[in-house]
C-alpha cells in the first residue's frame, strides 16, 4: 500500500495489455471518490447537502460515493438520511452510538470507504459543498492533500481570531504555509490517511502530519456559507486549542526523540539549580554567613529537582520508544526501483 515495491518500467513492459484492460474495467464500475460527511443535528439541511454534493460530483465525472456519519444526532437527522439513502445506492450511512467527534467519524468513514480519493467535509464547517470538486482538480495537478481555505469566512469573530492565531503558530513551527489548516475540510489520497497516525482530536492536524511524511500539501479557496455557526460556550475549548499547538510542536519535532525536547529544558533547570547551590555552598564555606534562611537555597534545590525530573521523564520516553515502537517507521518511501 504505502510502498510500491515494483519496478514501474519493467512491470509496464510485462503487463502492458493486461494493465490497460484493468483500468478500463475500473473506470465504469468502481468507486473512485469517497466523500465522508460527519453530521450532527442537521435534519433541515441534509437534503440540500446531498443534492449539492451529487450535482457537483456528477459534473466532475468520477464514480463517487457519499458516506454520512451521524454523530448521534438527537433530532430527525438519521431519519432524513435514511430517506435519502433508500433512493440512492451511492449513499452509505453510519450512525455512532454516542457522540465521538470528527476524528472518530473520519476513521469509521475510512473503514467503509472504497474510493482511492477521500474527501472529508464536516457539515458543521458549512463550506459550499458544490465547490468540493475544486479540491479534486487541485489534486489532479499532482498534490497529495488539499486543504480547503475558507474564504471569505462567515463565522464569528472570535472563532476567526483563534483560527488565525492557530495558523500563525503552525506556520512558525511546521513551515507549512497554509492559511486555514484547521478547516476540517480536506481532499486526499487514501494512502496518505493510512500512512499517518491520528487519534483523539488530531484530525485537524492531518495536513501537518501528512506534510511531515513528505506528501505534497496545498490549499484551495472555498467560500463558506451563511448559517447558524456553533460557537463554543466554554472557554475551556479555546484553552484546549492552545494546548493543541503544543501538541503540534511536539508531534512534528520531537515525538521520536523526547530527550532532545525535555533534556533541553531539564539541562537549563539543572544547571541553574546547581549554580545557585554552589554559590551558597561557597558563601557558607568561606564564612560569609549562614545560608539556612536564604530563599535561594530553596529555589536552587527546586530547580535541580525539576530539571532532573524532566530529564528522567525524557529518558522514560526514550525507553518507551526503544521497547514499544520498534515497528514504527520514521520514513516514507515513495518508490523503489530496480532489483
Amino acid at each position, binding site marked *: 500500500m504505502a510502498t510500491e515495491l515494483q519496478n514501474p518500467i519493467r512491470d509496464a513492459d510485462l503487463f502492458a495489455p493486461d494493465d490497460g484492460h484493468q483500468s478500463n474495467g475500473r473506470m465504469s464500475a468502481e468507486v473512485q471518490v469517497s466523500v465522508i460527511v460527519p453530521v450532527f443535528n442537521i435534519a433541515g439541511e441534509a437534503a440540500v447537502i446531498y443534492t449539492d454534493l451529487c450535482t457537483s460530483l456528477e459534473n466532475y465525472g468520477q464514480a463517487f460515493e457519499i458516506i454520512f456519519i451521524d454523530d448521534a444526532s438527537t433530532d430527525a437527522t438519521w431519519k432524513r438520511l435514511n430517506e435519502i439513502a433508500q433512493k440512492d445506492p451511492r449513499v452509505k450511512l453510519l450512525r455512532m452510538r454516542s457522540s465521538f467527534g470528527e476524528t472518530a467519524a473520519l476513521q469509521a468513514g475510512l473503514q467503509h470507504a472504497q474510493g482511492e480519493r477521500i474527501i472529508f467535509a464536516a457539515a458543521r464547517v458549512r463550506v459550499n459543498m458544490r465547490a468540493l470538486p475544486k479540491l479534486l482538480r487541485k489534486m489532479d495537478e499532482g498534490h497529495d492533500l488539499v486543504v480547503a481555505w475558507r474564504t471569505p469566512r462567515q463565522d464569528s469573530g472570535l472563532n476567526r481570531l483563534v483560527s488565525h492565531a492557530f495558523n500563525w503558530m503552525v506556520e512558525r513551527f511546521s513551515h507549512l504555509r497554509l492559511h486555514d489548516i484547521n478547516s476540517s475540510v480536506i481532499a486526499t489520497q487514501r494512502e496518505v490517511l493510512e500512512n499517518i497516525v491520528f487519534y483523539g482530536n488530531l484530525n485537524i492536524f492531518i495536513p501537518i502530519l501528512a506534510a511531515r511524511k513528505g506528501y505534497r500539501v496545498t490549499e484551495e479557496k472555498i467560500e463558506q456559507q451563511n448559517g447558524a455557526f456553533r460557537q463554543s460556550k466554554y472557554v475551556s475549548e479555546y484553552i484546549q486549542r492552545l494546548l493543541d499547538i503544543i501538541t503540534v510542536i511536539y508531534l512534528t519535532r520531537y515525538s521520536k526523540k523526547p530527550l532532545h525536547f525535555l533534556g533541553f529544558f531539564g539541562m537549563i533547570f539543572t544547571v541553574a539549580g546547581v549554580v545557585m547551590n554552589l554559590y551558597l555552598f561557597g558563601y557558607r564555606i568561606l564564612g560569609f554567613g549562614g545560608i539556612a534562611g536564604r530563599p535561594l537555597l*530553596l529555589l536552587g534545590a527546586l530547580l535541580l529537582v525539576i530539571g532532573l525530573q524532566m530529564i528522567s521523564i525524557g529518558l522514560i520516553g526514550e525507553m518507551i520508544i*526503544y*521497547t514499544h515502537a520498534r515497528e514504527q517507521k520514521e520514513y516514507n518511501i515513495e518508490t*523503489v526501483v530496480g532489483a
Partner: protein
Amino acid sequence: MAKADQKEIFCSIVVPVMNEEENVRLLHEAITRVMLEWGRSYELIIIDDGSTDRTFDILHEISRHDPCLRVVKFRCNFGQSAAMAAGFEQSRGEYVVTLDGDLQNDPVDIPRVVEKMQEGYDIVSGWRKNRKDKFLIRKVPSKIANRLIRKTTRVDLHDTGCSLKAYRGEVVHKIRLYGEMHRFIPALARVEGARIGELVVNHHERKFGKSKYNLSRTFKVIMDLMTLNVLLKYLTRPLHFFGGLTVFFNGLGFASLMALTWGWSQNHYVEDELNVLMSLTFLLFAAGINFLLYGLIANSVVSTGEKRDERLYEFKTYGN
C-alpha cells in the same frame, strides 16, 4: 521473489545519498568494479533521502542496466538514521556494508571489512586513520566526540563516525534505529549483545558537492549519549538507575532534616531559617519519592515491551 533471492545474496551494500548528482555515477561505477572483481553475489541499495537535484533521475537511469542496483526514494528528507533503517530493512544479504555516498570511503575496503568479520565479529567498523578533512572543524570535534562515546558507551572504537561498516545481516535486523542514532549503531548493537571489531580503512577528500555536517548538533549528540548510556546499563533494570536518584535526594532530605532538628533543639535558628529548612526537607523527600515512582513506571514500561530474551547469541551443541 524476495524469498528465493534471500539465500543467494552474500553481501548487501547500503548507501544513503542526498543531493549527490555529481557523485552517484562515480560511486556506482567504483562499487560495481570492486564487487565484480571480488566475485561474490551482492546487491547495492541506494537510498535517496529526499534529494532536490537530479540524483534520483540518474539512479533510475542506471538501475535499468544494472540488475544488482535497487534505489529507494524517500518522499522527503528524513535524515540519515531513517535512510540507514530503510536500507537495513530492504537488505537481504548475509552481510550488510554501509558507506557514505560522497566517495570519501573507498569501495576497495568493502571486501576487506567483510573478510575481517570472519574473525568472529558481528560488526566491523572502519577507522579513518588518515582522515582527509579539515582539521579544526571536523577532526578535532570528532576526536573529542569519539573519546566521549568510548567513555560513556564503553564500545572501544577509535572512529565511531566512520560510515564504512560491515554488519552481520542478523544484527542489522535486530537494532532499532531511530532519531539520530545512526552515529551510535555499534553502541545500539551492543545493547543487543553484538561483538565489535575495527579495521583501518582509506579515506579520500571530497571531490564534489557539499558536506552536510554542522557543529550545532552537539547538544543532541550529548542527549543521545545519555539515552544510550541508560539503555546499555539499565534497560533490564531501570529501577536501579532511578533508585540511585531516589537515594541521593532522600539522603539530602535526611541531612536537611537532621540539621533542622539539631538547630531546633539547640535554639540555633531563627524562625525564618526554620521555615526555609523545613520546606527544603519536604522538597527533597518529595523528589526522592518521585524518582522512585519513575523507576517503577520505567520497570513496567520495559517489562511490557518486546521480549528482551531475543538478544544475539551463539548456539552450539556438542556430541550428537
